[in-house]
């Protein structure tokens, strides 16, 4: 009988992993390494940083969740081509640190490709850490099925102390939807090779809520500011960035009409929702200025004089191009940012709009002055 109970105990342990993975407020990120590491020992000098929401490698695919599309699962060959193009772009940028959002590591929708490992093996980046924002054995909706998607930091130099910091869940959803929904996070890692004297060096990556209509976005930005302040107040150095799903101060805040799909109805009394989720940036008081604390405290890769210029727009829904054949809206707002408590090279901030076909977000890069040069 004892053996029987022991065997049952083993089965219970092995066979009862959570169906949907929930996370502690703070937990370890998943560590990665390239199968073949390039020789890239840091030998002083500046450090190039990129942030990019790569839309899990589906490029302009009309995915049902974030565009006017109806499709869910892209074919493997196209995903491979898209990921190869993303890897080529990263190699061309020759970044030392890359902050990625919307990376799939084991998802039905992208053929279960481990995109973190793929990028490490196909770029000059050597180390990575990953934090899931959506991890479930099976999502019983829209054919999504198994999913594991999240944020990743890739670096030429070794990462340590990688931490996943949980962001508050949305409160404008019912319990069942919330259970199966995203658990957004900040991922933070130390890069010992870039330590400056007594200053440790950190990379911090965030993907804030896109579709919440309550104050979840404020909570996410507050937690982000708090995380950065802890590093700064500790006397250490950081580079940070991500998809903040917030427009810069002074930007337009209502994109409902430009994001509207066939059959949608917004801004009318008959509309089911007056504003389109994710396309309106005044859901609560102060939302248009939600990024002011970041601009006030830290150096931005794209400065305040430029952040609302079209050449620094980083996003448009992927199917905007399809709305009518004569209007090509490749990007019409800025949602992606880079900051540091150090100093960016003043002319280095770039928005890589030529890469618009590879995602519905564009990469932003800048060079950090480091090593006193």
């Amino acid at each position, binding site marked *: 009988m004892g053996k029987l109970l022991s065997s049952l105990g083993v089965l*219970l342990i092995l*066979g009862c992993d959570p169906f949907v993975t929930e996370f502690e407020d703070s937990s370890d990120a998943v560590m990665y390494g390239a199968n073949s590491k390039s020789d890239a020992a840091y030998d002083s000098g500046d450090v190039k940083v990129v942030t990019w929401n790569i839309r899990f490698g589906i490029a302009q695919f009309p995915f049902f969740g974030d565009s006017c599309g109806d499709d869910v699962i892209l074919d493997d060959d196209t995903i491979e081509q898209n990921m190869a193009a993303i890897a080529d772009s990263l190699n061309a940028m020759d970044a030392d640190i890359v902050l990625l959002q919307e990376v799939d590591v084991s998802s039905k929708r992208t053929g279960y490709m481990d995109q973190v490992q793929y990028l490490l093996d196909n770029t000059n980046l050597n180390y990575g850490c990953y934090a899931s924002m959506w991890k479930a054995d099976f999502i019983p909706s829209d054919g999504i099925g198994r999913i594991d998607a999240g944020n990743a930091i890739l670096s030429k130099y070794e990462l340590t102390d990688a931490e996943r910091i949980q962001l508050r869940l949305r409160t404008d959803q019912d319990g*069942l939807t919330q259970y199966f929904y995203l658990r957004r996070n900040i991922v933070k890692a130390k890069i010992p090779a870039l330590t400056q004297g007594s200053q440790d060096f950190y990379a911090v990556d965030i993907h804030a809520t896109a579709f919440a209509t309550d104050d979840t976005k404020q909570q996410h930005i507050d937690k982000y500011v708090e995380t950065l302040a802890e590093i700064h107040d500790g006397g250490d150095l950081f580079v940070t960035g991500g998809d903040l799903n917030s427009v810069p101060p002074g930007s337009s805040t209502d994109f409902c009409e430009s994001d509207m799909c066939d059959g949608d109805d917004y801004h009318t009394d008959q509309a089911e929702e007056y504003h389109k989720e994710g396309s309106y940036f005044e859901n609560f008081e102060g939302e248009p200025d939600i990024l002011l604390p970041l601009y006030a405290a830290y150096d931005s890769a794209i400065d305040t004089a430029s952040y609302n210029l079209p050449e620094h727009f980083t996003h448009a829904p992927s199917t905007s191009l399809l709305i009518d054949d004569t209007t090509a809206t490749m990007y019409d707002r800025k949602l992606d940012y880079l900051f540091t408590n150090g100093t960016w090279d003043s002319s280095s901030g770039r928005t890589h709009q030529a890469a618009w076909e590879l995602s519905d977000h564009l990469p932003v890069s800048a060079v950090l002055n480091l090593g006193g040069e």
Partner: protein
Amino acid sequence: MKKIIFYFIIASLVFGETKKWDAHSAYLLPQKRWEMGLFQPFRYGYSESIEYSVHPLWFFVMPNLSIKKSQSDFAGFTSASQYKMVYATPFLNMIAKEGIMGIIAPEFRMPPMLGLSASWLMSKNMAGVNLTLNGGLDLGVTFGDLDTRSTIDIPLVYHRLGVYYNKWGIHTGLDVQKNISEKIGVLVDFDLRLLPGLAEVQIDPDASKLMGEYSLEHKFLLIWNKSENFRVLTGYKFVMGEYPYGSDMRLLPYIPMAETWVPIIELQWARKKR
């Protein structure tokens, strides 16, 4: 209503292999006796040598029929052959949809697909233990293009539907049942499903996709026979196998939101037609 049907069908997959009054043995039901359970097919002893069974609730969305026929004893074992037919297309297209309960992505339309299965069953009572061995061949006949991205990658389901993507499969199993008192019995079974060569029909020959070939299922049930016409079963089912995403194992039934395993509870009834 669709949700109720869907939950019932998923539950039936968990409970559906439950060993009943020798349902999975080579023994046939006595003539004119019927048996059914909450999650079991309806079985009917048509004659001394023929037994029919059908999942009544499945039938309207997934037409199915099984025939068991007695055969000559073999090596001292009571023997029977069993033939199953299922038409899964209507149900699969019902769950290929947008929104909640969209189990298959809405861009896929499943073609007409016929599942055929033939098994050989051999049973023997050895020192008070009822032993049954089974093995057979599964065929998945599709009449049109079946997109390999439309698989449902969850335990119990993936390997059963895998036969349509692989065109064929093999199954084998062992059932052991013993009465430990007049009213109480136990059942332990093991079932192995193989989908040989599944990799050949996968789009990407990536190593992680060469798997998806086997599933091992194990069940333990405690049985309380209240009478000849009613019994209650409880226990667990354990599944392990290779899937498109890698290997996985799970103890069932599992309640996602509560994140816990719960015991199987199955009620079964039987009567003899006058």
